[in-house]
């Protein structure tokens, strides 16, 4: 490859606050409002917060800082994609090819996440135009059944082939709108698109959440005939500590998993976002601020709203029966709450607009790493890379949209890529940072421009505690879930599981091929992709494009 003439990526974040909000937007998602409270209530209530905050300190903050450091370091060397940056820190081809998993995660998660995002928009539209058909006069059980039926209709969970069901199903319309919004902001670029959107979307999301929070906390006892169903009982359900749960390994596992997934570490996004920083830009305070923002949404808002409202209107038994998972809480139980709440359509619209904003700020962050990778590895222009990512995502979205029965395809992609592979990517990153590149050199790089002092004991944390902690929760996750997952997949006999696997393997093959092409291009451009210590190229136009 004699004459490599591709344009170096020159995108930059416009402001520090914009970057913080963009990273926080990536982290804050449906899990903050729907998964966290369910996990807490099922695993010790208030006591759950003890292992949760310990995991935040020992796992979330150090791995997050390491990921930010890796990204900024790679960006200085003209690299912006996970394979190239992880290869740099892992000093060779093995790390580089493993690093392609850092593109796989956001890309494949986008295949289904944008669907969930479009459901939120669909529900918002339903409430904004008069409700979703849950009759407030019916008993709770009938309302839950109506709510579940509406969810199945919205998501096409009753049958495959929604696209060919005759007419244009509303799911397809809301998916098209959602996809177009994502593609538009991606095309606008890092600063003018993603950052600009997050700068108003995150405050808007906070306002929506605060409106709902104030409404929930002022509900009192809505039905005097049911005095046990009140706000205090709801808060008690969420926060009353069960200290015995602290002696259960499962509680620690769930708490660490919640922190891990909530902060988006190992997701391949932060490593890309931070690559657009300059060498002396602070990452320590910036990362902590983004993580704190995520915690604010999760604990102070998610922990106060969801289950409190559910218990107040549904009672303890119905809440426990219908709030086990993200979808059942968000799309089955809460619509019943809104049906029973005064001005429920208004608050339902505000709630689902908030969830939509939480989802779109996350989905936008999933597209940028793949775009940067294709741009960097294939030498595509901004427009070309945007079109390629959009094309791949349309294919992935159509697969999930077609195989919608029982949400099996979505569930398969989520389990293997949205959970299993994330552990692996985070593990690769922390091993490359602490063991291959060297924890002392890594900490030196982290301290560059830092506006907070990094405690000395973080060296021990980064080298031993965080990798060991990660390994333990990964083994625990596999032990708890994989045998059960295989049993249910085999029992269902649904071919969508196999097709989803083909999608995953096809995506891996594509990314490995592009990494191989990129490797040749990067070498031809004289870039130090193996971390052998070549001189850092100045920013701006370079040999690589």
């Amino acid at each position: 490859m004699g004459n490599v003439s591709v344009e170096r990526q020159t995108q930059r974040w416009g402001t520090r606050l914009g970057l913080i909000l963009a990273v926080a937007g990536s982290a804050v998602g449906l899990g903050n409002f729907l998964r966290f409270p369910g996990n807490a209530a099922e695993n010790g209530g208030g006591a759950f917060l003890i292992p949760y905050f310990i995991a935040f300190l020992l796992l979330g903050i150090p791995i997050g800082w390491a990921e930010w450091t890796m990204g900024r370091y790679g960006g200085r060397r003209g690299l912006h994609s996970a394979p190239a940056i992880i290869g740099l820190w892992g000093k060779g081809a093995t790390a580089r090819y493993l690093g392609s998993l850092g593109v796989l995660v956001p890309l494949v998660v986008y295949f289904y996440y944008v669907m969930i995002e479009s459901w939120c928009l669909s529900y918002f539209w339903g409430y904004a135009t008069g409700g979703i058909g849950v009759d407030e006069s019916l008993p709770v059980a009938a309302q839950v059944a109506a709510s579940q039926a509406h969810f199945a209709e919205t998501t096409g969970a009753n049958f495959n082939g929604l696209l060919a069901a005759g007419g244009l199903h509303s799911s397809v319309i809301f998916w098209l709108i959602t996809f177009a919004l994502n593609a538009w902001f991606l095309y606008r670029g890092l600063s003018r698109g993603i950052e600009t959107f997050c700068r108003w979307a995150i405050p808007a999301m906070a306002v929506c959440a605060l409106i709902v929070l104030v409404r929930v906390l002022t509900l009192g006892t809505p039905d005097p005939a049911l005095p046990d169903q009140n706000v205090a009982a709801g808060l008690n359900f969420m926060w009353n500590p069960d200290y015995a749960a602290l002696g259960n390994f499962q509680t620690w596992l769930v708490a660490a998993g919640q922190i891990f997934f909530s902060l988006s570490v190992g997701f391949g996004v932060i490593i890309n976002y931070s690559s657009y920083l300059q060498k002396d830009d602070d990452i320590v305070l910036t990362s902590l601020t983004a993580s704190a923002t995520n915690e604010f949404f999760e604990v102070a808002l998610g922990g106060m709203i969801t289950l409190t409202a559910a218990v107040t209107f549904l009672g303890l038994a119905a809440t426990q029966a219908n709030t086990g998972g993200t979808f059942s809480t968000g799309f089955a139980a809460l619509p019943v709450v809104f049906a029973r709440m005064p001005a429920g359509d208004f608050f339902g619209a505000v709630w689902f607009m908030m969830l939509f904003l939480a989802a779109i700020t996350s989905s936008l962050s999933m597209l940028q790493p793949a775009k940067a990778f294709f741009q960097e590895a294939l030498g595509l222009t901004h427009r070309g890379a945007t079109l390629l990512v959009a094309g791949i995502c349309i294919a992935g979205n159509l697969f999930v949209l077609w195989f919608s029965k029982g949400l099996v395809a979505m569930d398969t992609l989520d389990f293997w890529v949205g959970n299993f592979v994330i552990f692996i990517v985070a593990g690769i990153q922390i091993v490359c940072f602490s063991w291959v590149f060297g924890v002392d050199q890594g900490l030196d790089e982290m301290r560059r421009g830092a506006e907070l002092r990094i405690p000395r004991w973080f060296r021990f944390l980064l080298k031993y505690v965080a990798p060991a902690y990660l390994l333990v929760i990964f083994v625990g996750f596999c032990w708890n879930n994989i045998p059960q997952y295989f049993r249910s997949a085999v029992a269902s006999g649904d071919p969508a599981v196999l097709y989803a696997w083909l999608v995953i393997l096809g995506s891996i093959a594509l990314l490995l091929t592009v990494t191989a092409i990129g490797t040749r291009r990067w070498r031809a451009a004289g870039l130090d992709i193996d971390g052998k210590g070549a001189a850092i190229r100045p920013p701006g136009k370079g040999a690589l494009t």
Partner: protein
Amino acid sequence: MTLAAMLFMGISVSAVVALTAWCYYRVLFVSRRGAGRDEN
């Protein structure tokens, strides 16, 4: 609502609110770079 529930809720929510407020205070008012400047 039990006293223990109130304590756990109060401490947890106060902790995240305080951490978030402190971080934004540092970013917006103390940082040598501040926020909103075109730092790149």
